[in-house]
């Protein structure tokens, strides 16, 4: 008797899996291209290097197209689809982040085309490992796309590990001492934090008897469970997410990894895993924290985490001499700002998070692109090497200035609009809850914006107001060879930088273009 029921349920499960497969076409497409690149790598090892880049771009464009189609198919009002027997949740929030992830990946691929590491060991025009690079990159993207759809603890764990393991490999892609050191630190911190997260998840499973966060019994049992256990389980699980968004106290890996890893990979790290981490954090907040019945001050807790993250990120960034290391602390600080939007738990808070993450992706990719261009020119990533570059190359100087102003959050850039939304959502949350911690967070947030002004504007200051003491070696050689000084930046890179910077100005004046887009996303906290 029992057996026949099981067979029946197996049949329905199989048909559900087949039906669900139609809704994950973008992921299937990405996976197909991952395998294609892997096969190309076996066939065309060491030759036809451009083919890999073209294939990777084609795969990403196709995936983005499929995602856009998915966006237009999902109705605005619908709650989203539960696929694979409630394993993943496909809603507009997920699709929005998946599009953001794919677009950032396109720019990452374009950025890495002209990148050359210090020892020249990572240069996509000559490297033999280009196939492996794109394979692992696609693995990371697949993980990030899965993570933005997941509400099931098993899928969250699998997706986070897929992102992490790909990240550990990508960190090492310079194949020199520094990137090896970065990756060993990354894998040790990452392994511990994912282990702790897994232990928290196992406790959550024990408390609720289900792994599905959207399941009614998950929320009922969380509300009924003893406080101390829920606290432990919840905080352990939260740790894994905080690691992915590089927020305090799990931020220790970020500076070393950002400094040691290849710069295009760093640009990707600062956007894609972070975006995916914030989606899962929002879902976790909605399904777990908001369900806790007793008087657990989770909003205060998140506010404290955000304050610590902001202070650590901004003040540590002040002392940095290496640009990439400074950007690492800056990205930690930005995580703090986005956390503010998450803990507001209102539809306006969600809107501000989405807007901030999108703008953050643009300005970070732009900043890293210019860092790559300048480090190819000067052979160094030290801020002191930026002296006088603004006078020599006005276009690059102005683009860097706009990127830095946007990262600080000053008008007339989209960075200002993003910060404005974040702070107004926080003010709204404070008015509705009267939690003093939120007011403190607001004060600290504004104070930190001022602090960040000092280190962001240090770069344009060096570029425009400090005279360069020496002409660069590379420059002198080209001077002797050609008889005239010429701009050594690739035209391709310059156009790419303008394409990335331009929306930052547009979105300040026409922020409602993106807002209208985001407004069609239903999400309930």
């Amino acid at each position, binding site marked *: 008797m029992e057996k026949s029921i099981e067979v029946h349920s197996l049949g329905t499960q199989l048909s559900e899996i087949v039906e669900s497969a139609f809704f994950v076409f973008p992921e299937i497409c990405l996976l197909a291209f991952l395998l294609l690149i892997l096969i190309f790598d076996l066939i065309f090892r060491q030759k036809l290097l451009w083919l890999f880049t073209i294939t990777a771009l084609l795969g990403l464009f196709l995936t983005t197209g499929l995602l856009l189609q998915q966006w237009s198919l999902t109705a605005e009002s619908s709650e989203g689809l539960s696929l694979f027997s409630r394993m993943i949740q496909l809603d507009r929030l997920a699709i929005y982040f998946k599009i953001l992830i794919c677009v950032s990946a396109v720019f990452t691929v374009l950025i890495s085309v002209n990148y050359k590491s210090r020892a020249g060991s990572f240069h996509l025009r000559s490297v033999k490992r280009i196939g492996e690079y794109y394979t692992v990159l696609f693995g990371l993207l697949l993980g990030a796309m899965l993570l933005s759809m997941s509400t099931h603890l098993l899928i969250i764990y699998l997706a986070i590990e897929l992102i992490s393991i790909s990240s550990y490999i990508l960190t090492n892609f310079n194949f020199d001492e520094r990137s090896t050191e970065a990756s060993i630190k990354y894998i*040790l911190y990452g392994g511990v934090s994912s282990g702790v997260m897994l232990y928290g998840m196992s406790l959550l499973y024990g408390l609720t008897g289900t792994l599905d966060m959207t399941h009614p019994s998950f929320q009922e049992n969380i509300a009924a469970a003893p406080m101390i256990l829920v606290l432990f389980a919840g905080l352990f699980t939260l740790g894994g997410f905080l690691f992915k968004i590089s927020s305090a106290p799990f931020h220790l890996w970020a500076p070393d990894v950002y400094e040691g890893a290849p710069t295009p990979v760093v640009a990707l790290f600062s956007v894609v895993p972070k975006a995916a981490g914030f989606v899962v954090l929002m879902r976790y907040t909605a399904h777990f924290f908001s369900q806790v019945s007793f008087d657990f001050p989770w909003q205060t807790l998140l506010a404290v985490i955000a304050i610590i993250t902001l202070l650590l990120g901004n003040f540590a960034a002040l002392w940095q001499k290496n640009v990439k290391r400074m950007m690492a602390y800056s990205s930690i600080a930005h995580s703090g700002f986005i956390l503010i939007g998450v803990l507001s738990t209102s539809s306006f808070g969600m809107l501000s998070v989405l807007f901030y993450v999108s703008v953050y992706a643009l300005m970070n990719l732009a900043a890293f692109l210019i860092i790559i261009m300048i480090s190819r020119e000067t052979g160094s990533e030290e801020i002191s090497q930026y002296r006088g570059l603004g006078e020599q190359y006005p276009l690059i100087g102005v683009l860097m200035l706009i990127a830095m102003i946007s990262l600080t959050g000053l008008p007339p850039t989209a960075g200002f609009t993003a910060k404005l939304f974040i702070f107004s959502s926080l003010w709204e949350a404070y008015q509705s809850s009267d939690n003093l911690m939120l007011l403190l967070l607001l004060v600290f947030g504004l104070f930190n914006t001022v602090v960040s002004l000092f280190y962001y504007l240090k770069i344009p200051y060096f570029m425009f107001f400090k005279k360069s003491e020496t002409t660069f070696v590379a420059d002198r050689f080209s001077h002797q060879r050609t008889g005239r000084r010429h701009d050594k930046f690739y035209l391709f890179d310059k156009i790419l930088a303008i394409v990335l910077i331009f929306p930052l100005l547009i979105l300040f004046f026409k922020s409602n273009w993106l807002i209208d887009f985001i407004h069609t996303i239903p999400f309930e906290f």
Partner: protein
Amino acid sequence: MIPIEHYLIVSALLFCIGLVTVIIKKNAIVVLMGIELILNAANINLVAFSQFDASRIQGQVFSLFVIVIAAAEAAVAMAIVLKVYHFFKTADVSEVSDLRK
């Protein structure tokens, strides 16, 4: 039948031993062993809690996934430790500190 508390005590002990190993040991391979202990502590929890699950199987399947992922992670970690040894002639994490200079 063995009561659930026994499993939980063993897993909590394993978790603590793993965490302490991670914190106090400097050798990268020993730290990785600590990470394995943490993962297996979670596995014991998952399998033990699985008997109270309505569908009975979720926790056990989860632990199978964890075992596979732990193997994949260990493989990548070992490769990186080999590279570290190649460059620094040591597997001691505290001596691997070229960055931040």
